[in-house]
């Protein structure tokens, strides 16, 4: 395999593919990137056996077609440290890769390309739905933060994907809060798709693939894999991931169906107030008290030995009786970061009942209170 490529384009593709490469592995092939140069196209692939990614590299000129398996770590360092505009890569039959710049020659020892487990190709016949990168990226952004790091009982260290007709929802929870983001498909298969849970890490990588909001995205299912194609034709990148097995908690039941208090805030003001109230919390006293009144919300926090804080926020609109409730400020901050509307609405019922935060019609966030 012999080719010359644009260094910046190569660097971008390497960074993307490397995000899948496992940091600690005993299998040498898994710590490598696979290069395939064929039909004038270079594709770089990586896998950790759970997630696989294949991404094309733009602006390549191939003189000898072929395949190569090159250690990701060193290749990345070489390309990143280089100041050349183009680099040539030449891999011989003994799997030695020579990377040349204007004033540099690197030789690194690669592996036999056949040792690479491969990445599932996109099965065009099994498309579940199609949408845009902008839409899918937004859904992921608004839910991914609420997943659990580790939980043995439920499969909640991933995001639930649920499609009914052309409507698609992503749902995430860590057992104390729940985020539901709704979106539209541009095209969908007939009927409803079976729900599936996509691991957090795969969605993190997928998020990077979705950099151009106008890119078309196609999502397919095959066996226990979810395969996502981003872009079109020969330039399309593919990500394949195993699905999380197990059951997602019955989330529909925990979304309160009614409320008797409804507060409307300026999102920026609320964010600032919660951030400040959070200053005087500590490990053992996490919660902040939120006292809702007709015109004002008073936030207060108290950490024994440290001190106390009180912040007042104007309420744009309040419906219902005054009420006090405690929340972990982190859960409020998390959601305020992903809301992009100027207004947020909080719906409440009682101090021991969940609070609901809404932004527009396509986002609902349920958060459980803390006792103070």
């Amino acid at each position, binding site marked *: 395999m012999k080719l010359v490529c644009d260094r910046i384009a190569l660097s971008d593709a390497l960074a993307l593919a490397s995000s899948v490469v496992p940091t600690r592995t005993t299998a040498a092939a898994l710590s490598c990137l696979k290069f395939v140069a064929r039909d004038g196209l270079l594709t770089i692939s990586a896998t950790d056996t759970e997630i696989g990614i294949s991404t094309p590299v733009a602006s390549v000129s191939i003189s000898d077609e072929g395949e190569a398996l090159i250690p990701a770590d060193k290749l990345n360092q070489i390309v990143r440290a280089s100041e050349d505009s183009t680099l040539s890569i030449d891999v011989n039959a003994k799997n030695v890769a020579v990377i040349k710049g204007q004033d540099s020659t690197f030789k690194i020892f690669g592996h036999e390309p056949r040792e690479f487990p491969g990445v599932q190709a996109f099965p065009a016949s099994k498309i579940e739905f199609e949408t845009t990168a902008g839409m899918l990226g937004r859904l992921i952004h608004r839910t991914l933060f609420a997943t659990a*790091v*580790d*939980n*043995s*009982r*439920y499969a909640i260290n991933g995001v639930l994907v649920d499609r009914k007709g052309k409507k698609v929802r992503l749902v995430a*929870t860590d*057992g*104390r*809060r*729940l985020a539901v983001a709704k979106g539209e498909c541009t095209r969908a298969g007939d009927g409803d798709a079976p729900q599936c849970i996509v691991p957090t890490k795969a969605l993190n990588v997928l998020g990077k693939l979705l950099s151009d909001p106008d890119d078309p995205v196609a999502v397919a299912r095959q066996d226990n894999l979810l395969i996502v194609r981003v872009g079109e034709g020969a330039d399309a990148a593919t990500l394949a991931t195993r699905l999380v097995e197990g059951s997602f*908690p*019955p*989330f529909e*039941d*925990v979304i309160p169906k009614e409320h008797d208090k409804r507060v409307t805030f300026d999102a920026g003001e609320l964010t600032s107030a919660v951030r400040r109230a959070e200053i005087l919390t500590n*490990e*053992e*006293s*996490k*919660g902040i008290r939120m006292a809702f009144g007709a015109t004002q919300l008073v936030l207060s926090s108290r950490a*024994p030995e440290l001190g106390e804080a009180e912040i007042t926020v104007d309420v744009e609109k309040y419906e219902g009786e005054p009420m006090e409730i*405690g929340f*972990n400020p982190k859960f409020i901050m998390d959601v305020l970061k992903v809301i992009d509307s100027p207004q947020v609405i909080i719906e409440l019922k009682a101090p*021991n009942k*969940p609070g609901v935060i809404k932004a527009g019609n396509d986002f609902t966030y*349920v958060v*459980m*209170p*803390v*006792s*103070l």
Partner: protein
Amino acid sequence: MTRSPIRPLPTHLVNQIAAGEVVERPASVVKELVENALDAKATRIDVTIEGGGRDLIRVTDDGVGIPPEELPLALAPHATSKIVRAEDLEAILTMGFRGEALASIASVSRVRIVSRTRDADAAASIEAEGDRIGAPQPAAAPPGTSVSVQTLFCNVPARRKFLKSESAEASRIVETLESIAMGHPRIRFTLTNGSKTVLDLAATDDLRRRASEVLDVERAGLTGDKAPLLEANGDEGPLTVWGLVGRPELARANAKHLRIHLNGRPVADRAILHAVREAYRGLIAPGFTPLAAIFLELHPREVDVNVHPAKTEVRFRQPSMIHQGVLRAVRRALRAADLVPAFELAPSAPAPAPGAPLAWRPSGGGALSAPSWSTPSRATGGMPPLEDIAEALGVKPWAEPTPAAPATESPSALPTVARAVEILQVHSAYLVTQDAEGLLIVDQHALHERVMFEKLFERVARGPLERQSLLVPAIVECSGREIEALESLAPLFERLGIEAAPAGPRSIAVHAFPSFLFERGVDAGDFLRELVAKAADGTLGAATGEAPTALATEVESALADTLDMMACKAAVKAGDRLSIEELRELLAWRERVERSTNCPHGRPTSLRITMRDLERQFGRG
């Protein structure tokens, strides 16, 4: 069936029955006889046994002796020189008082007494076996009394059969004698088993010396420059507590080396044992017992020792005050000490420093013991009230009850780790730094666990832990017994920020869990499963191995255990890399929290190599 007529029991049968209570085994004979010797103001007591005490027990003292004419009375039941009237029972100062010991012993063995008063020219002897008491005979002996008991239980084969092996009975005798000797350092004790000298405790005024011999501090393998025994002192109302308590690393898996004396008498009171163990909670491993010699001085009015003939059980008028007083005194001693164990690099270090002598303070009882052998009460008539004697002798054995002074919280005795000092994390598990005394090695998990525990403990004292509700309850599968145990945990849950309820015949639903534990990545379901399992098998709150006396104590113990579980799960683990800020903070906490030298399970958090040891190892010493 024909009716048996009711008849009074013959005297020797009454005595045999009484003997069943007083004389259980050879060790109880030793105890009774040695206590008589103490009451006779002996300065030296020699005990000889043969055949584990079955064949022979001889106790010889150099006390006041018994005049020949009183010898037969000494063997009569309920004859004593120690009690004159019923009021005296309210204020018992002597060791023996029931007046049944010798008679009981004689009823189940062959007893020979040889005694000589100090001013007599010759000794007299008397022999008794069963209900036959011989006449006094002239004999030759130095001043004092020697009581020999032969063929114990010869006429009670049932009891003789229940005796343990010779060596087991002998070791009980050693234990009994040690226990008494602990409370009487000014008296020399020897014990000879066959031809072998088992014990030889020199008379001393230094309690520390007697304690280190009796408590076997040397065999505990303690090294370093710190005294193995710490001085404890405290007053709580009418109670005075003093004595020596061992460093936590001396604790043993058995309770043989925890000696408690009340008014000069060894006692085995569960409440006191519990208080001592409680003071060591978190400093020693569960199931271990600290090594200590603790002396309680209490006005006899405050305690009833006449609960059982063996007199090791007592009944306090204000048991919670006693518990509190002991707990505080011991805890204060431990808090005031630097408990970081120093360890040897090579076995060349000298034996540990013994520590400053601790002058023996005779118990009110011991100092005032009325001689039992010289003044039999029936012969001489009434004695003045004991308090008058005390006053006449110028002894003030008991302080009048005074309101307890608020316990002053002494700051941690740990040498400070200088703020600017370098801290090295070794293999993501240990921290190495220096303090004023030398090189300090800290187990990061153990220390963090202790810090977490103390923080939680303090927080719970102030109010319930903050509770985070769960969106979907965590369901825990468990047994029916565990579901039953859940109910008993309700008062704990209230304080700990846990909300859980049965969700069926075989499962529990957790509805809320402390936000603190969530933050530290502790799984609510796993935690509850472990907690109810512990509660169901009775190990929760029972780590001290002692049935707590009051319900409140039980709840507190369970609370401490649960907080301990929380702390353990929330603490950093071995293998967690810590930033320099985290390392600094952890070490700073070491000086701020109590008992930071040990994790809540009692394992040490820190070890020290002293400068002295380093110098020695590098050949500079």
